[in-house]
């Protein structure tokens, strides 16, 4: 998988750190597992000297900023960041850059210009849900939107995408919106509370991690199951598969692959290696459709998240295509 060792000699003594702000859900756990798998291998092969993951106890920008400052003190050559906030870490990131450290952000990206960004177009992700629905339900209908955690940028971006989609497809109307905090039980709770007062719902647009909870809530309220957009979690996919086998239920599932952490790792390694890399890279989100459901389900760990891990070559391809 990995290219010739000799070409990598430049980074053999470099140390890379992963700064992670949250480990409390299956997506983040999958992300850490992927990181662990790929970097252990890379360290064993001598590609880099170290690739240590660090997680904060609470999902807070201030705590992560302190963590990054500590990483600076520890003399890492590159820091890969999944940021709690796109802007609140800028102070710490700037200090890292000033100390000559390469900073690569992914998933939760940062706006500080000195850092690299591996972004997913969350807005497009939101819009794609409506595009799919417009095709599937040409007549349109009422939508229930499940949002994430208020005040967080990803929530805002996906929401903006969904709004744009609704504007484009005026046959759809958002009749209810709740915050599910990207957590199954919170989503379920919120949907159960609003559902009794909603008219018939044609589809549920989500942000990932909350589709199964929504399905449960609809079932508990004895309401017909609408088209619920899923978020690549295994339990969602299993439920989808069951429904599909039972009554041909159709939907789509979209989310960012947790393995993007490994892409960020390789990008950081490439930059350390002296490669020219553009500051902004875009990775596609991982989308599952009716026809590739089974394959994706088969490849997903029980209770986990559908995932793609990146090799050095994949990373080089992404870098090259951005030029």
């Amino acid at each position, binding site marked *: 998988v990995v290219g010739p060792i000799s070409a990598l000699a430049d980074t053999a003594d470099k140390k890379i750190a992963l700064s992670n702000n949250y480990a409390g859900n299956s997506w983040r756990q999958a992300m850490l597992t992927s990181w662990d798998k790929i970097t252990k291998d890379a360290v064993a092969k001598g590609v880099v000297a170290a690739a240590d993951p660090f997680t904060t*106890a609470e999902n807070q920008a201030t705590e992560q900023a302190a963590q990054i400052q500590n990483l600076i003190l520890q003399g890492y050559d590159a820091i890969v960041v999944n940021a709690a906030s796109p802007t*609140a870490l800028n102070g710490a990131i700037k200090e890292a850059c000033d100390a000559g450290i390469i900073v690569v952000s992914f998933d939760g990206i940062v706006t500080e210009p000195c850092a690299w960004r591996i972004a997913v177009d969350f807005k497009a992700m939101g819009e794609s849900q409506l595009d799919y629905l417009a095709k599937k339900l040409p007549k349109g209908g009422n939508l229930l939107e499940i949002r994430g955690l208020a005040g967080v940028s990803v929530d805002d971006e996906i929401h903006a995408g969904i709004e744009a989609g609704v504007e484009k497809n005026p046959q759809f109307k958002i009749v209810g919106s709740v915050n599910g905090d990207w957590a199954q039980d919170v989503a379920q709770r919120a949907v159960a509370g609003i559902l009794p007062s909603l008219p018939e719902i044609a589809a549920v647009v989500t942000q990932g991690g909350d589709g199964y909870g929504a399905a449960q809530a609809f079932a508990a309220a004895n309401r017909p199951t609408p088209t619920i957009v899923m978020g690549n979690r295994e339990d969602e996919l299993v439920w989808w598969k069951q429904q599909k086998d039972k009554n041909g239920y159709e939907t789509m599932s979209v989310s960012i692959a947790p393995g993007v952490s490994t892409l960020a790792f390789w990008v950081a390694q490439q930059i350390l290696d002296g490669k020219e890399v553009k500051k902004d890279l875009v990775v596609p989100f991982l989308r599952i459709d009716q026809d590739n459901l089974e394959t994706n389900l088969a490849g997903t760990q029980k209770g986990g998240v559908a995932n793609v891990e990146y090799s050095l070559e994949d990373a080089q391809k992404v870098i090259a295509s951005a030029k």
Partner: protein
Amino acid sequence: MKLSSGTLRLIIPAVSLALLLAAVFYMQPRAMSYTGLNLLFNLAVPIALATVAQMLIMAVNDLDLSMGTFVSFCACVTATFLQASPAMGVLIFLGAIAAYAAMGMIIHVRELPSIVVTLGMSFFWGGLAVLMLPSPGGEAPGWVRWLMTSKPPFVPMAIVASVVIAAVTHFLIMRSSFGVLIRGVGGNFRSVERAGWSVIRIRAATYALAALFAVLSGIALVGLTTSADANIALRYTLLSIAGVILGGGEFVGGRVSPIGAVIGALTLALAGSFLSFMRISPDWQIGAQGAILIVVLALRLFLNRLERREKIQ
């Protein structure tokens, strides 16, 4: 020499901080420098301010569960209004301080439990913050950024700021008449009342002062992070309480120590760093934070024991 209980209240947190600092220096000698110290401590400055605010509330036997959301709110105001139109920002801050004073009065007049009222207020401030900044952003006003990143000679800004905060609050709360009244209300408000003081005014003023420190905390925080979001300081609620306790303060009885509170905040910040210097498997990194809290507090107990033995002899 006989030590007063106030001094003892201080020595123990100070020694814990020193020990922790020694451990950090041992593990990471690089930290023993101007930039090293600044990196270790600069994020402790807003925490210290929030801890002082919490300490003021605790001095009158109350507890503020909205500290984190309120500091977040202040940070959002700093990054938006204070930056764009300073006058408006100052006005909002004055309003927030007045709201705190009113809250103190309501708590006193209706004899409400402060925990409940502040719990309600935490939703309120959180909501305002989300309205102001639906997604992270804003920008730190230039002067704030300059202040927080300035590099005074010899001693890094983080240390200077901590010392100034400790000194000012020590004077305010331990030496001034006003401070005596605040602590008197915590110790026995009936006796303060009987002496002819208006306890409601003291409480209102205490809350207002606490709000002022929280506002400063929000401003300092934005100075460091350059921008804000609605959830930026949520953990300050628990951190500030822990800081007061680590610094030798108590929940009831008006027994507080401003210097201790600042030291407590620094200790908490340092404990986090200490942890990242030890390489721990990611599974256990969160747990290790709990463990380190326990160790620091165990240290406090140990020193307490030593001190008591000293006292008996």
